[in-house]
């Protein structure tokens, strides 16, 4: 019944355009809508507050607190901040994470090459290739990390066998502090390639076929076609990709955690910022220190994203 009244009111409002009538009719309708809005939004907003907004505030408060999980926490100023900022592990783990992010970024050109090759018209086996390249995206990092650890094994790993064919001396890639981070980052490239291809494919599909044809008719070879036409037109999606890639890399944890284990001699040179967070907050149960590390992660992520947005003017072309 209420709905009919509402509908009638709406129709009356549409017909009668005197201001008084409109005002008289609008009020009950808005109230009815308001109740529906509350009914629909209550649960999502409650969850948002309990599991995201309150935690945000709580983490900030924790970072300025002192205490333990058992006796509780009280505000104490910058103690935890100064403790974490004086911990050399913070800087090595930040450095490791940045190096990891940069190496994984090198996967973008590889993805671009594959994406352009896959995009060719009338290419055979395209669906087949896509499935194979996409496979690592859907596989559990904890599981593939084990496989890669085996491949990288210094005594009987597949990689050393392969290098042996070329007379290259192998090593224990993941246990060696010099190579562990690069070894993990290569797995990072491998797992992200499929996602990168999908995002780049969307960018490639957005290039009008006429543009490509016009360039070809003007005598552009495939090399020139790529550097002068495709690459600039794809730059917005490459930009998006680099933003997502860096943000994702800053979150690296599973691969390092499972590939290295907790006692690996190379851990110092591989420990990521999230790994450090996990150790402080949940292994040593130093929640305030964990909160500080979380905030530092937030700040670093923000700065890196900002830098990328600044740099984009130099190389991203918006059509």
């Amino acid at each position, binding site marked *: 019944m209420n*709905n*009919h009244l509402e*509908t009638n009111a709406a129709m009356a409002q549409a017909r009668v355009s005197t201001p008084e009538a409109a005002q008289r009719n609008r009020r009950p309708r808005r109230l009815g*809508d308001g109740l*529906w*809005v509350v*009914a*629909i*939004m209550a*649960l*999502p*907003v409650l969850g*948002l507050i309990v*599991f995201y*907004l*309150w*935690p*945000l505030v*709580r983490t900030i408060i*924790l970072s300025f607190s002192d205490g333990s999980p058992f006796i509780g926490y009280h505000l104490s100023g910058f103690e935890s901040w100064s403790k974490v900022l004086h911990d050399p592990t913070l800087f090595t783990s930040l450095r490791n994470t940045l190096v990891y992010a940069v190496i994984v970024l090198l996967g973008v050109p590889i993805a671009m*090459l*594959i994406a352009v*090759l*896959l995009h060719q018209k*009338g*290419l055979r086996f395209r669906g087949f290739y*896509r499935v194979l*390249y*996409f496979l*690592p*995206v859907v596989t559990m*990092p*904890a599981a*593939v990390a084990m*496989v890669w*650890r*085996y*491949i990288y094994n210094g*005594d*009987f790993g*597949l990689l050393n066998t392969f290098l042996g064919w070329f007379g290259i001396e192998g090593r224990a890639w993941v246990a060696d502090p010099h190579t562990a981070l690069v070894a993990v980052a290569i797995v990072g490239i*491998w797992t992200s390639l*499929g996602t990168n291809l999908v995002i780049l*494919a969307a960018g490639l599909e957005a290039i009008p076929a006429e543009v490509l044809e016009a360039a070809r*008719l003007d005598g*552009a070879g495939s090399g020139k076609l790529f550097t002068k036409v495709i690459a600039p037109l794809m730059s917005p999606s490459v930009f998006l990709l680099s933003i*997502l890639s860096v943000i994702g890399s800053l*979150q690296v*944890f599973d691969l390092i*955690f*499972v590939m290295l*284990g907790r006692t690996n001699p190379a851990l110092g040179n591989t420990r990521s910022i*999230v790994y450090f*967070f*996990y150790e402080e*907050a*949940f292994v040593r149960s130093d929640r305030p220190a*964990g909160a500080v590390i*979380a905030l530092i992660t*937030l700040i670093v992520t923000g700065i890196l994203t900002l830098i990328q947005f600044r740099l984009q003017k130099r190389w991203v072309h918006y059509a």
Partner: protein
Amino acid sequence: MRDNNRPNTTVPNTTVPNTTVPNNNAGASNGTQRRAQRANRTNQTNQTNQTNRTPIRTARVASHIVLALGAFFMVLPFIWQLLTSGKTLREATIVPPVIFPESWQWENFAKFFDQLPVGMLFTNSLASLVVRVIGQVLIASLAAYGLARLKFPGAKIVLGLFLMVLMVPPQMFIIPQYEVIRDLGWLNSVQALALPGIFSSFGMFILYQFMRSLPSELDEAAKLDGANPLQIYARIIMPLCAPAIAAVTIMTSLFAWNDLLWPMVVNTDPNRMTLSVGLATLQGAQSTDIPTLMAGSLLALLPMVIIFLLLQKQFIRGIAMSGSK
């Protein structure tokens, strides 16, 4: 690639007749001819001299070589994992390696079941996935509907808060989320695994974008017919959102199945762990039994791989939707 014989007018590829394929390779098989035609179409110009077609065909062959080589390296770890899961420990650690196991060792899988309560871990993973996916789709679609289709004061602020949460690194929430779950007395439970993920902004964002693109006449017409907002949501908007719901379902399933940090923090009881956490704990002491590790990790990633192979298009669209913010 410069084509001097190019005619002044381009002929649209649909009208290129068969005769443009020169007859001087009359002995060529049907397949070769078709390939030549395809190469012609690719170029979108009607070339008539052989010298121009050859580099195109070589380029195509070269692309296939690069693509196939790349694809081989992408799947090599999985092939190696599969082969090793059937080997004896000796076969797995011998140098130089043997490719195929002499006889398939099923007991590697049995040993994995001995080392971990696999059935329990699998159930935990699956239960938390189902709860999380259903909860996330429901909560996210309600929020998205409210924000995209209903007008209310403060809607912009609420939307802004949802989006802000999406941009903040997850570590910012984890410690207090853990405290909330602990205070609710839910550590080591399925709801602990699923809960924060149910309220994630991720699904809201995808559904919001999708719902905003639907014409507003839909709601208005339904409203005139006497439908209330919840009816419009359930009967009109949600059915139209099927592609977005599929994307959210797939991505949330992936997150839930593969997640490590949150389940590790919140469910420490060995019987309450997820499969991924169970695997990670194996990495410690008994990590020398490689065939068993390969068998276990294979079993852990297989369900998602099978679902992916069945629903390739939806997976790829899911990534595309969540990637192209």
